[in-house]
Every structure is written in structure tokens, then in C-alpha cells.
């Protein structure tokens, strides 16, 4: 007979971390939230602001479903704390479509059937916006490499690449 114990983690857990008012700018609107530091940006979006377009696929930066744009750059919102993004401009999938309709990438995703279950899709699209902002992808293989942080378990990769390629006007044969 052997006995095992889970590791000791916290000596006297009788108080919780203090909440503070955090100001987040999301899709152009300012939001004030009462949050403790331990709330990730992803959970702030999904659980506190009900902006559930940003997805949780692993919560560890290993799938890309939570990709959002912070000051135009794509990041994994699961691996940052909401409190660390005060003052930043955050764009989520809900903020991509303009008054004149869908973002060109959104249209291209529909056109190319660049999704199946749709769960990784917002992350793929936000990531592709980030990719275009970066301006580093010149070839199809560049797109494949630089989109590799977004896993599509349904396997829509060829269609996702087609959609991005079309919007970026990259010659598929290049």
C-alpha cells in the first residue's frame, strides 16, 4: 500500500486577490471591468464581456483559437492577463466587420469553405489579419509557416491558405 498526496499549493487560502477597475478598449469601445489580476484577457472577453467570438481551445498558447489583435499585432489572449492590456487597442473577431459588411478575409473564408466546425475560425481570421499587417508573407509556403500557430483540427488548412492568398493577392504558384 502506498499513499500519495497532491502538492501543497497555498498555506492559508482565506482571502481572494483584490479586484480593481480595469479599463479595456475593445473594438473601439471602452469597457470598465472589476477584475482581479488573475483573469486572463481571454476570460475577460468571454466570461465578463460576453464577447464569445474569441475561442478557448487550449488555454495554453498551443492552438491559436484565442488569437486577438493588440495594437494591430496578433497575440494569444489566453496567455496574457486582462490587467496587462490596460491602455491597449484590442480587436476581436466581433470588431472586424465594418459598416459596409464583412472584412474581406471573412468573405474569403466563406467563399473558400475555409472552415468546418467554425471553432478555430475567429482565431484563424484574426491571425490572418495580423499576418497581413506584418507584411512578411510573400509566398504560399510563407503563409503556411506563419499561420502554423493556428490549429484547425477539422483540417481546413488548404482552404484557409487559399482564402488568405486571395485576399493578400499572392500568386499561388509563387
Amino acid at each position, binding site marked *: 500500500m502506498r499513499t500519495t498526496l*497532491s*502538492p501543497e*499549493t*497555498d498555506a492559508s*487560502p482565506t*482571502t*481572494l*486577490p*483584490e479586484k480593481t477597475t480595469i479599463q479595456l478598449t475593445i473594438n473601439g469601445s471602452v469597457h470598465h471591468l472589476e477584475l*482581479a*489580476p*488573475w483573469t*486572463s484577457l481571454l476570460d475577460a472577453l468571454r466570461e465578463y464581456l460576453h464577447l464569445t467570438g474569441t475561442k478557448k481551445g487550449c*488555454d*495554453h*498558447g498551443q492552438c*491559436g483559437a484565442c*488569437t486577438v489583435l493588440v495594437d494591430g*499585432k*496578433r*497575440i*494569444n489572449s*489566453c*496567455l*496574457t*492577463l486582462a*490587467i*496587462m492590456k490596460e491602455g491597449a487597442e484590442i480587436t476581436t473577431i466581433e470588431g472586424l466587420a465594418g459598416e459596409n459588411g464583412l472584412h474581406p478575409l471573412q468573405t474569403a473564408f466563406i467563399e473558400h469553405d475555409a472552415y468546418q466546425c467554425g471553432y478555430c475560425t475567429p482565431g484563424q481570421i484574426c*491571425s490572418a489579419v*495580423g*499576418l497581413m499587417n*506584418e507584411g*512578411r508573407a510573400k509566398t504560399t509556403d510563407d503563409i*503556411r*509557416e*506563419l*499561420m*502554423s*500557430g*493556428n490549429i484547425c483540427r477539422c483540417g481546413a488548412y488548404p482552404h484557409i491558405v487559399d482564402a488568405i492568398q486571395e485576399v493578400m493577392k499572392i500568386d499561388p504558384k509563387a
Partner: protein
Amino acid sequence: MNRFSYSRPGNVDTAVGELTRHEGAKFIAGGTNLLDLMKENVERPNHLIDINHLALKTIEDTEDGGLRLGALATNADTAYNDKVESRYPLLSQAILAGASAQLRNMATNGGNLFQRTRCYYFYDTGTPCNKREPGSGCGAFNGFNRIHAILGTSDENPETRCIATHPSDMAVALAALEAIIRVTGPNGERTVPIADFHRLPGNEPWLDTTIQPGELVTAIDLPAKGFPDYYAYIKLRDRQSYAFALVSVAVGLEIENNQITDARIALGGVAHKPWRKPEAEAMLVGKTVTEADFQSVAETILSGAKGYGHNTFKIELAKRAIVRALQRAAKTETES
């Protein structure tokens, strides 16, 4: 995840002061590894000091012809920096071989140095790990050790046994470039050569680096010699992208009139730190590109390597990767 408080100092001195005052506090920059580990209950800081607002983001020339990388410059900004791309393409390539575009946009240069091992047992609080829980044992030693170390391991005493690897790509290139790490702490500033920054597990596998409590990495200095003409970074992994290295090799050569005048070879994925063997590098110096015996160099670097079952293949793989990287750097690789 445990509970913690949070502060956001505006300058280096305040940040260092806060870390010294708060026992159990940690700096957070990109957060890509720390928050990951906190969600696994592996890291349990009681206070996070957000250093993202410190003025440590610049990349600028140094007086001796080198380049200073701010500790808080992101991996992406570093890899895509014009000066890094033209003068240190090896570093640029190594950084871009790691993680994903999103993670590189978040991860900082300083944080990259403090990345912790990807050992499955270290990550899983349901298993023993001497690095995570000193004295609890090493699950990997008799377990699933395919991604584990073959060089510089600590495998004799069960209570300090550790065969973990350092997972960084960037650090492997920095080792080849002989970067100098600038550190600020309660006792002022100091510099640490990259070779002395990470440590082998020895009898204290829970210590990853030689950095002292209260210290903050402020910059990474790259010496002038950047091997922009003859270099290679080869990373071997289980898929084409977004995976940690089973083995990686960074090579920088200086070649004049077909003769090798300087050589650096660093290995990743094989030890608790980027692995170099100066005597192997010396075997190349003075040789012409065609007469140099890359295979012997590889054998020398891997001398003393030891496999633990699942990872034994890494010994042969590393040798082949070294030979290929040397060929590629020396531009003698067979057309492919």
C-alpha cells in the same frame, strides 16, 4: 492557478526593489511561459511585477560594433529587426524557428532566456519531478523520455536526478554568438556570458540559471562578430512548425580564402542548456572547407552523450544535424 497580487512599476529600480521586497514574487513580461505554468500549478508566484512598461525595448548599436537587444524587445521585433537580419541572421533564423507568430509577438528576449523545460513530468503535478518538487524523483528517467537530454544530465542520485532540456531556439543562437547578458540587481549591474547564464542540473536541478534572487535581465549584448556570411540553424522536430526541437544546431563560421578562421557550434534540445564544446570547434580552425572533417567534429561534440531509451536516437540525429549544419554554413551542402 494560485492567487497573486499585481504591480506595474515604471522603472527598473522600482521593479528590482519590488522583487527584493516580495518573497515569492516574479516578473512578468510576455507571460507566454509563466502564465502557462501558473495554469498548470507549476509556477505559483504570490505577486506579479509587470515589467512591460520599463524602457528596455530598444535594439541599438553598441560602441564596440555589437548590438544591444533590449530585454523587453519582443522575439518578433528582434527577429525582424533590420540590423539583426543583416548582421546576425543566425539569431533571426533561430527565433523564427521557435513557437508561433502570436507567441513571438508576445515573448520577450529576456523572458526567452528564462523559459523553463518542456519535460512532461515537470509540467504535470500528478507525477514526480525534482525540478518542480525537489526530492520527489525524476519521472522521465525510467519513463517516457523521448524529448529529454543526452548530455550533461544528472542521473545518479534519485533525489536530484534530472534529464530535462532547455527548450529555447533563441538561446542556442545566442550561445553560438557568445552573447553577454546584462543584469541589474540589488547589488547593481553585472554581465554574464551566455555560457554561464544557464546551468546544468547537477545537484540542484530546480535551478535553471545562475541569476540571483532579485536580479533582472535588462539587455542582451551581441558582440560584433555575427557570422552573417557563413551560418546555419537547423531544427529537427516532430512536425514542420510549432513544435519544440528534438535537436537543433546553430553554426557560425568565418571563412577566409576557403580557410575556416573561426567556428561556433551550439546544440539545442540535448541538454539543460545550449551545448558547446570548444575543442570540437577548434578542430575546424585553420582547416580548409574541403579538408575539415565535419563527422569527427560531430563525434567530438557528442562524446559522452548518453541515451535513456526513448531519446537514444538523438545522439545519432545530433551528429547528422551538426554535419549538415556545418555543410550548410560552409556552403558545401549537396544540392537539395
